[in-house]
């Protein structure tokens, strides 16, 4: 059961890495990076249950937060060209 889950996560990882490398636009890569973070959390959970240590689920929460931070940083940089931007749009 968990072995099947791990296998399917690995297949999904291969597909997403292919998209991250090939991705015509930057947003494909950003989305692929975010998906790989999610898949890493899933892999963590599935391997944890597979090896009989479901306590690893707590670490998945931290991974989720980190994934959010890096994706937000990339998108903010792409939108404003600056990480220290206050986020308000300038009206021309």
């Amino acid at each position, binding site marked *: 059961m968990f072995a099947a889950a791990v296998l399917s996560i690995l297949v999904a990882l291969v597909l997403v*890495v292919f998209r*991250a490398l090939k991705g015509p636009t930057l947003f494909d*890569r950003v989305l692929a*990076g975010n998906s790989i973070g999610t898949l890493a959390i899933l892999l963590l959970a599935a*391997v944890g249950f597979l090896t009989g240590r479901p306590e690893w689920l707590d*670490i998945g929460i931290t991974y989720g937060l980190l*994934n959010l*931070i890096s994706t937000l*940083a990339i998108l903010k940089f792409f939108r404003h060209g600056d*990480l220290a931007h206050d986020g308000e749009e300038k009206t021309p």
Partner: protein
Amino acid sequence: MEALINIVLLTLLAVITVGIMFQRNLFAVVVLAGIYSFLMASVLIVLDAVDVAMTEASVGAGVSTVVLLGTLHLVRTIEYPSKRSALIPMLVAVATGAALVWGTIGLSPFGTADNAIHKHVAPKYLADSVKETLVPNVVTSTLADYRGYDTLGETTVIFTAGIGVLLLLKGRRRRGHIADEDSKVGRTA
């Protein structure tokens, strides 16, 4: 099963590394480096080093993505091809890699319980740490008590590095206005 996961993850790591080498858009390189860190964290989890995986994910995927983006703010996002030949760096890298692989030949088999490292002081720590240090967590008591001087040295190194970075940033801020104007003109949309 574990071997299969390792094979897939390590192959993906190699593929990502080659992709980073051939990628000229530095923005994409930052994203790919974040992906590399998440995959490496997954490898470390499969290897049972959950704490190291946590550090790899937070430093590699979280902090260094932000730091690299901050660097991209100062430079352009397209890497120009180098004029010099890559032959000598390639040879050095291959030779170093071959030496490292050669170095693993003499090691004892991976993951066996009767390796020398598990026989030296680890049984004593496991048996006596609670009695001697009154700390319920063996990892904490080993790091902060038995290897206290070692940890003190590491903290000193990190503290020194932090002071160095602060000094560099402070020197930059003093003539910061000119640099800001330059980057606004030089940056491409």
